[in-house]
């Protein structure tokens, strides 16, 4: 049985698994953005927090994904459903690029622009959302892009703890020693990653600030 006939015969299952995959990646990325960007902004305001926050995010990133899934298993509520577990783990992995890029994006806004803005009497909030965030947008988007692509890949491993997603097919194919089944999981995941990368790349370009000549 080749790859195409497997896909067409099992199109409902492939579609369902793709949606599960998207769901896990989508929710975890939204959560990571909701936590990571404010944290990134926070460490530009309280510089003493910069090192510890980045260090923790770095450490999380170095934990092998299977081990992280395992660590989180005993957690209350989260541990009850494999899907919650997978979303939490993916969120944690996505934090580092988001925090770091938000920090770098904001701190690399031209000092003269920030001084001018403060000197004109913008409040801290106005400075942040009228000047710093718009000018850092392309760098922050680059962080989201990296986080998203990593998540799509990592989410395949979530199938190992029964969280579903396209990893199901990959693990099943491995067990059956059937390349078509592996590909039926791997190719949609790869396409998803490429699409995400392309879309975010396009957005990033659109938000790149015009440089003074």
């Amino acid at each position, binding site marked *: 049985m080749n790859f195409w006939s497997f896909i067409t015969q099992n199109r409902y299952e492939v579609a369902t698994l793709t949606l599960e995959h998207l769901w896990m990646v989508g929710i975890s990325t939204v959560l990571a953005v909701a936590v990571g960007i404010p944290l990134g902004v926070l460490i530009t305001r309280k510089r003493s927090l910069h090192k510890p926050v980045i260090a923790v995010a770095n450490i999380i990133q170095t934990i092998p994904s299977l081990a992280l899934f395992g660590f989180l298993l005993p957690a209350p509520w989260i541990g009850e459903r494999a899907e919650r577990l997978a979303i939490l783990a993916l969120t944690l992995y996505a934090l580092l690029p988001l925090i770091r890029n938000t920090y770098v994006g904001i701190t690399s806004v*031209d000092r*003269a*622009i*920030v*001084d*001018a*803005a*403060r*000197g*004109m*009497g*913008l*409040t801290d909030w*106005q400075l942040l959302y*009228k*000047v710093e965030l*718009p*000018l850092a947008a392309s760098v922050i988007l680059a962080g989201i892009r990296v986080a998203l692509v990593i998540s799509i890949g990592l989410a395949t491993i979530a199938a190992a703890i029964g969280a579903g997603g396209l990893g199901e097919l990959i693990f099943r194919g491995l067990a059956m020693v059937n390349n078509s089944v592996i590909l039926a999981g791997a190719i949609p995941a790869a396409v998803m990653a490429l699409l995400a990368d392309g879309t975010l790349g396009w957005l990033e370009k659109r938000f790149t*600030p*015009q*440089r*003074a*000549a």
Partner: protein
Amino acid sequence: MVEFSNVSYVLPDGRRILQELTFGARRGEILVLLGRSGSGKTTALKLINRLLEVSSGQLRVEGRSTKDWNVIELRRHIGYAIQEVGLFPHHTVGRNIALVPSVQNWRKEKIAVRVQELLRLVGLSPEIAARYPHQLSGGQRQRVGVARALAADPPILLMDEPFGALDPLTRADLQREFLSLQQQLGKTVLFVTHDLHEALRLGSRIALLEEGRLVSLTSANKFLTSSEPLVKKYVDAFGTNDRQPEKP
């Protein structure tokens, strides 16, 4: 309008950037802070709008210590133009100029009128409002910087080498225009420069700073003939090409 009395500024590492500065800017004058790089003139300016905080002494704006001002209110009372201009690259010229009025919730029509008025005032054509800063020449950007500083009609202007990055001809144009603008508007201006010619051309009075201390404060026309050795040194350093001081 702006009074320094015994103002010092010390860095956290203990280095003294400004020492016991005492001087004041009178209403409607252009007070030039002249000095070489590192003399503390930019620091003095940033103390006025509290981008930096006074370490000791009193700094009053309109009779009130800067510490007693709400910092946002203080800054909106004072226009600020700097050499790198600091225009926001993601906003059009119009939005750059309109920023302070818009955060002060002016009505849209009033802002639009104000932007046009300011562009005319600094010698730019109204169409420029729709352009982005990177589409302008250096001279145009500086003009926009001045227009933006004037946007909410602040009585005080702080200018930190606003014409420093321009070629000599454009700079001379802008200086001339700025002078006539100032005569129309009657703002109190504190103007930082290291350029003696600029100081002589624009200043009502010149304050010479050296290593964080005030060396002399005289009217511009007495500056060249001052007997103060450091003033002489500064004047001599600018060479003999014009405005040679008369030897006594």
